[in-house]
């Protein structure tokens, strides 16, 4: 098992787990889990557009996550 720190932004906070506070908190994953698995673990459907930023780098959906990774899950919002 590994634990990553997740921060959900704006409307994606509705996918927060009970362990999270204000859309932010730890999430336990299997050792072989990727960013795609993280989205599935949060219950974010594949049709929900979002961008993942892992340790301050934009990440694809198949990135193998490491213990302690910081993962931001962003909706497709870009100001005006």
């Amino acid at each position, binding site marked *: 098992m590994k634990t990553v720190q997740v921060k959900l932004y*704006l409307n994606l906070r509705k996918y927060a787990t009970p362990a999270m506070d204000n859309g932010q908190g730890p999430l336990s994953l299997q050792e072989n889990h990727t960013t795609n698995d993280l989205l599935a673990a949060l219950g974010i459907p594949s049709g929900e557009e979002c961008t993942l930023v892992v340790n301050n780098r934009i990440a694809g959906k198949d990135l193998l996550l490491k213990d302690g990774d910081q993962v931001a899950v962003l909706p497709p919002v870009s100001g005006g």
Partner: protein
Amino acid sequence: MTFSLRGKLLDIDLTAGKAREITIPEADYRAFLGGSGVAAKWFYDTGKMQLSPLDPEAPLFVMTGLLTGVNVPTACKASFCGRSPATGIWSESTVGGRWPSALRSCGYDGMIITGCSAEPVYLYLREDKVELREAGHLWGKDVYATQEAIREEVEDENLRAAAIGPAGEKQVLIAGIIIDGHDARAAGRGGMGAVMGSKRLKAIAVSKGKKTPKPYDPDALDRARREAVPRIREKTRGLTDYGTAGGVPVVEKLGDLPIRNWTGGSWTEGAARTSGQAIMESAGVGHYACYRCPIRCGKEVQVTKGPHAGTEAHGPEYETAAGFGACLLNDDLHTIVAANDLCNRLGLDTMSTASVIALAMELYEHGLLKAEDAAGLELNWGNGEAILSLVEQIGNREGIGEILSRGVRRAVAHFGPPAAEFAVETKGLEYAFHDPRAFTSMALVYATGNRGACHLEGLTYFSENRAFPPELMGLEPEYEPHGYQGKPLLAKTMQDYMGTFNALGLCKFLIRGHVTPAEVSDWVKACTGWTMDAQELLTAGERIFNLKRLINTGLGISRKDDMLPPRLFAHDRVEGAAGGSLPHLGKMLWEYYRLRGWSPEGIPTAERLEQLGLPSR
């Protein structure tokens, strides 16, 4: 069936104090759609492009869009077009709110204003009527007071005005035109407020009429609207709740915020403190929607700082929050709210004003501008008192504001080397606050934008982060975040599509609601009775884009001007999601020109112009 959307155009000579009505041929509407498209056509045809922008005979085009006022989602826009005194090239500044639809309800599609009145005047329009009225008593008033005074004068409490404030009167080169008084929507960019000021035209006031054009097929339009509106509402809910500024924390995480005059990499806490959510929780009092808009992104706030503390005002948009927030390293939202309100009252473009203040703060940091040069102000990053004071000095051309009121490019020329290191502008227009190092297709959008460093001419950051999925335009669904492959086609395609919006009078946030060219062309068909498919719509957008380029190449623009400033081209953000990313402009530009059918020097070829039905130079 005759083309029912066409109204009259007013040809107004302020020197002679006369107005006459003219009619735009339907062929011009078909080819250039309306709004800024038709304005570009008529501007080109006048042969007056070479006139100095502040020459009395330089024309100012005020045009509603083809669909403005009709019952089409967000059909609320008008454009102020001509040659910009800030950049010296083509300029269009588009604004929503309720004034444009009121103008169209009077039976007018717009006006061409030339000349200069001997004394200050304002235009007053009612249904089929226009008159010039003396405005000496309004000169010096701010924008809000101007609309209020005209309302009392003509006894119409619902009157709407497009007005300049003291900044436009004093021909501040970053002055905008503000509409709807306190509701304050801004045609901010390009200094068109200075053009109105140079003509001694204080305001264009409108009492609503009943001559809004009727659509050709109201049933088809109604069906199309019912299909579109629920989807637009659902996909833009964030804008509805928190306005455009709700995106501040998200773009910060993507490396898109212009932190500390574009030198910073991360500003997470600051972004949270200056977000739309924070603004609404701390200062919000209500919401505001433009005419026919299902999105309702406008916000109303309480002003708690500055000379107008205690009043209510229009809330800061994303660009204003990013400019007066991250760009100045100011995390006090109340200063942002007050600066926004001051800009609106004075009639200043918030984006250029924040940019030129960022320049001043960086000059101060490096000892090139001292407190004694700025009336004793310590221009430290984030100094809210200094920010508000500089806004007033710029708007009134007082003190150091005299230099800063000329915009970044001219201010840099004043301060000399190495001030150019801190300048963030292209073709003389200060940047919108989205970083081409984060969304590299934006490098092309900024470099080739017809009015300078404009984000709205392409909005490809919406495509890159899938707020407007690229496959809806028939493009690749995903792009390497900081790469260059495929981005020239993305930039060109989106520029062509976005070029139709200012012509049609539509808000570009429709693409956040996934509105496609096929859908827009259906609306045009239902409104006009024309046959027009998605490809024909995009070809019209391409024609419009090329005509504006043609105007600009006639003014000396070429590849040498399609550039990024050193800060965005060669300065690594280092930290954050865009750290290490620098846009491959040279590689992208070559392919972009090829797709456009332009020469390697960035000049439209005779062959492409002919294909588009445009004159060959």
